[in-house]
C-alpha cells in the first residue's frame, strides 16, 4: 500500500518537473524522472546484450577486477554497482570481443597489461604448480603412511593374538569362544 502511495506521489512530482526538462527532448519522456536522481546510486546506462553474454561473463569470471576487491570482473561489476573499475574493464573486454579475439587471447592480453595478478587463479605453470599440488601431495603421502602403519599394526596385533596362550584357567576352546563373544560385543 505504502509503496503505491509513494509511487503515485513520485509520479505527480515527476509530472510537475517535466516542463523543466524540456531541454532533454532526445530522452524518452514516457519514463518519469526521479526527484533526486543523484541519490539513487551511480548513473546507469541501459543494459546491453554484452552484459548478459555467457562468453563474456565466462571470460570476466577468469579475470580479477583491479579495484582491490579480490572479486572477478563480472562479480564486481554486478555487486553493489558502485565500482568504477569493473565497468571499464567490461568495456575493454567487449571491445576485444568485437575485434574477434578468442577467450584465451583476451585473458592473455589482460595478463600482458595488468600482470599475472589479473588472473583469478594462478596459471598452472612453473612454481604455481606448488599451489595446486602440495595439499593433494601432503594428504596423499600422509594417508599412505597412515594406511601402511595401520596395516602393519593390524598384522602385528593378529600375530600377537595368534601366538598368545590362553589366559590361566581357560582352555583353548573357551578362549576362542571368549574372543568371538568380545568381537561380537564390540562390533
Amino acid at each position: 500500500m505504502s509503496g503505491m502511495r509513494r509511487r503515485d506521489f513520485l509520479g505527480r512530482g515527476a509530472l510537475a518537473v517535466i516542463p523543466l526538462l524540456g531541454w532533454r527532448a532526445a530522452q524518452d519522456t514516457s519514463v518519469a524522472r526521479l526527484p533526486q536522481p543523484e541519490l539513487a546510486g551511480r548513473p546507469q546506462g541501459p543494459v546491453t546484450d554484452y552484459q548478459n553474454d555467457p562468453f563474456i561473463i565466462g571470460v570476466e569470471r577468469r579475470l580479477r577486477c583491479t579495484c582491490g576487491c579480490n572479486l572477478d570482473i563480472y562479480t564486481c561489476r554486478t555487486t553493489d554497482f558502485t565500482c568504477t573499475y569493473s565497468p571499464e574493464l567490461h568495456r575493454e573486454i567487449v571491445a576485444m570481443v568485437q575485434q574477434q579475439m578468442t577467450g584465451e587471447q583476451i585473458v592473455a592480453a589482460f595478463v600482458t597489461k595488468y600482470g599475472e595478478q589479473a588472473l583469478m587463479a594462478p596459471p598452472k605453470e612453473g612454481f604455481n604448480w606448488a599451489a595446486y599440488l602440495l595439499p593433494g601431495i601432503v594428504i596423499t603421502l600422509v594417508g599412505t603412511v597412515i594406511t601402511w602403519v595401520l596395516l602393519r599394526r593390524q598384522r602385528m596385533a593378529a600375530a600377537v593374538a595368534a601366538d598368545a596362550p590362553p589366559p590361566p584357567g581357560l582352555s583353548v576352546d573357551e578362549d576362542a569362544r571368549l574372543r568371538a563373544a568380545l568381537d561380537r560385543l564390540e562390533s
Partner: protein
Amino acid sequence: MTVLGQLALWLALLLGVWGAVVGWMGGQRGDPVLIRSARRTTFALAGLMSVAALGLVVALLKNDFNVSYVASYSSRNLPTAYKLSAFYGGQAGSLLFWGLVLSLFAAAAQALTPRRYAYLMPYVAAVTSVVTVFFVSVTLFAANPFSRLDFVPLDGRGLNPQLQNPGMVIHPPMLYLGYISITIPFAFAVAALLTRRLDVGWLHAIRKWTLLSWVFLSIGITLGMWWAYVELGWGGYWAWDPVENASFMPWLTMTAFLHSVMIQEKRGMLKRWNVILVGLSFALSIFGTFITRSGVISSVHSFAQSPVGNFFAWFLIIGGVFMGWLTWSRWDLLKSEARLESALSREASFFFNNLLLVGMSFSVLWGTVFPMISELVRGSQVTVGPPFFNQVNIPIGLALLGLTGIGPLIAWRKASPGHLRRQFLVPVAVALATAGILAAVRLSDVYAGMALVLAAFTTATIGQEFYRGIGARHRLHGENYALAFARLVGRNRRRYGGYIVHLGIVVYFVAFTGQAFKTEMEASLKPGESVVMRSPYGEELTFTHLGVSQYEALNRFVSAASVEVTRNGRQIGVLTSEKRQHVDSFGRPTFEPSTEAAIRSDLREDLYVVFAGSVDGTEEAVYKFTINPLVMWVWLGGAILTLGGVVTLWPGGGPSDRTLRRAMEGYQAHLVEEAAS
C-alpha cells in the same frame, strides 16, 4: 569515563603480568596463597576489562567525538544498536572486545571448572593472563580506542553502511567468542603439559569449552555467510576471502580435535596429536586475527593496515616456539596407551577424518598465503581466488562427506565382515538409488551429483543409527517412538548430538550443490516492462518492474525499486531492492551508496534482486536478477548443526563423576607403578 577506561587498561596490564607470574609460581611451588592470588587475578582482570569496555561504550553512546575512535566509527544519527556494534566495528575497539571476552572466559573457567582439576588451574590462570596481557598491550601501544583528537568534530564519520545490518551486530561477536574461547582449551593443554598430568583429565575439563568454541565458531561463520549474502549484494555467501578462510581454518582443526579426542578418551591413543591440534587451533585463531589486522593479505573485510600486525607476528612466533618446546619435552609422556588393532575400525576412520580435516585446513592456509609465498619466491604476486579454492577443496570436502557417513558405521577396535555388511547394506542401497535418480534426470554437474549421492548415503547412515536406537528402546522398554527418540538423544547426548551435527553438515553440502545451478541476468526495465528467466526446475519466472520511489529514513536517503514476480503466470509477490545513500546529521552524504538486495526464499530457491541504479535519472531501473537454488538449506544446515552442538553441550551428557573418579584413580595407580618401576 574514557580516562577511567584508559586507567583500567593500564591496571589490567600490570595485573595480568602479576597473574601470569603468580600462576606460574603457584603451580610450580604448590603454594595455596599464590594459587589463590592467581585465581583472584583472573576475576579482577575481568572486572578491569569490563570497566575499560564500559568506558568505550559510554563514549559511543554519548557521542564523545573528541575520542578518535568514536569520531571514526559513529555519528549522531547512527541508530543505538549500531552505536553499540561500532564498539567492535573498528580495529582498536575489536581488540578491546577480544581482551574483554577473553578475561570473562578466563574468569568463567576459574569459577566453573570442577575442583578435581584444581591442579591445572594456576597454570590455566597464568596462560590466560599472558594472552590477556598481549591483547591489552596491543590495545595500549598500537591501537588505543581511547586516544583523543586535538579538536572536537561536530559529528562523526559514522559506521560503514555495510556494517549497519542486524547480521553484523551479532556475527562478529559470535566469531570472536569462537576464536577467543579456543584460548581456554589451549590454556588447559599447556597446564596439562606443565604439570605432566596428561591423562584424560584435562580433556574432560575442556570438553564443554571445546564444544562451546566450536558452536560459536559455527554460528559466527554461518552468520557471516548470511551477512555477506543479504548485505553485499553479489548473490553468494562464500568467496574464499582471506578473512573467511581465517575463520574456517580453526573450525576445521577444532572439528578434527572433537573427533580425535574420542580416541584418546576411549583408547588412550593420539595424545600427542590432540595436544598439537589444540595448539594449532589456538595458533590459527591468532593467525586469523593477524590476517585481518596486519594488512599483509588484501581482503574486503580487513581492518586498515596498522602496526598491530607486528605484535601478532611476534606473539605467534614466541607462542609457537614455546608450545613446540613444551610438547617436545613431554613427548614420552604423551605415548599412546593402546595400539591400533585393525585398519577397519572406528579409530582408523577417525585417523583419515583428521587427515582430511587438517589437510583441508592446510590447503586453505596454503592458498591464503600463496600470494605472499609467490612474491617471496618469484618476486611477483598472484591472485588465489575462488576458482583455485574450489578446485583444490571440493574433492577433499566430498571425501570428508563420505567419511562422515562411513565413520559411524564401523565398530571400535575391529570390524568384522558380517558387521560391515549389516551396517553398509541400506546406506549403500540408498546412495545407489539416488545415483540412479540423478542419472535419470540427467544432472549435468559431476561434483553436485557426487555431493548428492554422498549426502544420501550419509543421511541413510544417520537415519539407520536413529532407527535402530529408537527401535531398540521401543522393544526393550515399550516406549512409544517419540519418547524413545527423546530418551535416546537425552541419554546419549554426545553420540546423537554428533549425528545431528553430521546431518547439519549433509544439509550444508546439499545447499552447496545449488551453486552449480545458479542463474543470473541483468536487465534495464521501464515501469511495466518485464523480463523472463527460466529456473533450474524448468519454471518460468517473470519479473515486472513497478517503479522507483525515493524517501528519507533514519540516517539515510532511500531509492527503492520494486518488481512483481510471477511463477508460471501465478503471482508470488513483490520484491523491493534499495539503494541507500547514508547521510550525517547535517544531511551530508557519507560513504558510497550501498545496496539492499530483495530476497524471496523458499526451500527450492531464492529469488535475489538487486537494484543497480536508474537510467538517466529516470524510473527506468537497472536490475540484476539471480535465481539461487537451495540457499535456504545453508541457513537450515547452520541451524541443525548448532542444534546438534547444543544437544552435545547440554549438561549431563558427559561421563559421570564416578566414571571420572575411577579413571583418575586408575591413572594415578598407573603413575605410581611407573614411578616404582
